[in-house]
């Protein structure tokens, strides 16, 4: 049964290769004939192109002059307007900003701390270092304001030492982020944790650079972030 399958696959492959070869040869022939045709009419085409170019240059010059006139008129109008007082209704700028951007794009805004999702650790440590407090607080604030959003905290470790110990350590890392978020008021039910230990390394190098990258907790928004 297997052998028949393999034979059929092989036959299909051979057939596929054959037809592909044919197609590329045909298209090559078509290109060559077009080249010959173009050579024949080259001189006439060159002449037409020259004329078109001169015409184009004249058009451009005309446009530039008109543009200059328009700008001068605009400046004169603005100078007159500056004399008048400007009256605008007062608005809550924070409210306006929020209604303008949906939560999902807030999470992706590269300028916002929310776009950063990874907390890094020292070897065999699970405490959140001071430099990652802002990041955790930003996500805590976001989750507080968007109670319909859930997150998954994924804890990871570098490859050194014991896989089983690292699995437990990765859980501690994820749990420490969860704890920080709940202390900010985020409902615990909205935070899931998982440990990958040293089993799903993001960096594959067996060196300090790779290890540092892999000692990490990721804050993952399911549906927004791609699964790893």
């Amino acid at each position, binding site marked *: 049964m297997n052998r028949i399958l393999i034979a059929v696959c092989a036959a299909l492959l051979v057939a596929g290769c054959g037809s592909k070869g044919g197609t590329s040869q045909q298209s090559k022939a078509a290109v060559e004939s077009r080249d010959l045709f173009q050579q024949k009419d080259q001189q006439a085409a060159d002449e037409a192109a020259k004329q078109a170019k001169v015409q184009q240059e004249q058009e451009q010059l005309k446009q530039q002059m008109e543009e200059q006139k328009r700008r001068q008129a605009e400046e004169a109008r603005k100078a007159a307007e500056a004399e008048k007082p400007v009256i605008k209704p007062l608005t809550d700028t924070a409210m306006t900003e929020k209604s303008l951007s949906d939560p999902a794009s807030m999470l992706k805004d590269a300028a916002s701390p929310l776009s950063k999702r990874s907390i890094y650790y020292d070897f*065999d440590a699970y405490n959140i270092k001071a430099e990652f407090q802002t990041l955790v607080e930003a996500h805590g604030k976001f989750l507080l304001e968007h109670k319909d959003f859930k997150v998954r905290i994924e804890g990871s470790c570098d490859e050194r030492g*014991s896989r*089983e*110990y690292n*699995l437990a350590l990765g859980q*501690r890392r994820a749990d420490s982020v969860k704890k920080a978020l709940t202390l900010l008021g985020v409902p615990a039910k909205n935070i899931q944790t*998982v*440990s990958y230990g040293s089993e799903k390394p993001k960096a594959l190098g*067996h060196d300090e650079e790779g290890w540092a990258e892999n000692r990490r907790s990721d804050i993952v928004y399911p549906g927004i972030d791609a699964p790893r």
Partner: protein
Amino acid sequence: MEMTGRPWQSRRADSKHRRAWYVVAGAVLCLFSTTARAQLTIEVIGGGADQVPITVLPLADEEKFQQRISQIVSADLVRSGRFKVQDIGSVRPLPSEPTEVNYRYWKNRGTQTLVIGKVIQRDDGKVEVRFRMMDTSKEAQAVGYAYTIVVPQMRAIAHKIADTIYEKLTGEPGVFSTRIAYVARFPQRFELHVADADGFNSQFILAHREPIISPAWSPDGTRIAYVSFEQGRSIVFIHNLVDGTRRILASYDGINSAPAWSPDGKRLALALSKDGVSQIYVIDADGNGLVRLTNSNAIDTEASFSPDGKYILFTSDRGGSPQIYRMSASGANVERMTFDGGYNVTPRYSPDGKAFAYIQRNQGRYTLALMDLTTRQSVILSDSSLDGSPAFAPNGRLILYASIVGGHGILAAVSSDGRIKQKISASALDVREPAWGPLVGNR
């Protein structure tokens, strides 16, 4: 002596088992046979002192079969590091019966032990393998057996002969008929393999794109417990090797990790984080009767039962760094065992219960170490830098472990006296997580 093959060892039964497995588990992504993939190649690096000299002659008519018994026996004996296998000399025809042995000739060549025999193809399709180990100084047979087998059992019977020779000459059981399990990593998938102790006949029992770790053999060799991430997080399964079925042992909230069988095979120790940080629990092999053994607010994991079932060694960072502790099997009388260095993990009791292997960090290197439980002295047995997952051979003579060489995971083995070293490589990206199966069968 009739040899009965375990169903999954013979090729026909194997395909049947695999089909059953697809139906049961349905997690396998690739349906192609992988008997040729991840085959292990074992290279002996060191050599022991006081090697026993032995000459293994080709068995008469063994060349009529694909698997040549004398070659398999010789390779087994060499790999153990305890024998010096000598060349077969020039006397022809080669003896295959005691009456044909020219003792004078062999004694003059310094051969103390001579292995002879023959392979007979019977009319009923079966094969009779006769082997005798001759003591040339006594001019007598030391041991001899005749086995009636079918052709696919040829390698198995060769290992059995090697075991008999090993036991007769060293007084300890041989482990050539045992099996090992390990995890092979390929670009898009992980496979849990079971292979003969010499690396042959490797076949996967589970394949998935998510990681598989921590395989542990049941004491009777019929089941393997392991941790699989196939459901997106760590879950402990027990996989039956006889019928290919499996079931979940533990899928509590948090991690489900580090399964370790009790010596009677009735219970397993586990590391679970369902109550907070990872703690050690025991559970019946059928999934009932979960009992918490440790009560710390630190990581407790990697339990290993003593062979008499009275103690459990485990890893804990309750003292500020991961160290090895010992407690009674009920969780009482916790005692710290390691004090040197800031990272000592993965304790594994030796089969005689007198020592334990573990992984020790030493000047930034993670190496295999062995602690004598009587003297509490440790020796370092490996010289690489990212070693892990030690697994004793069931006779305690060799320790298999995972290492990284040239950026790839390999398996390595070292004798418990540190003299013999083996490097085991495979045609996978990485091989890792070795577990050595028990001594089983009609020995």
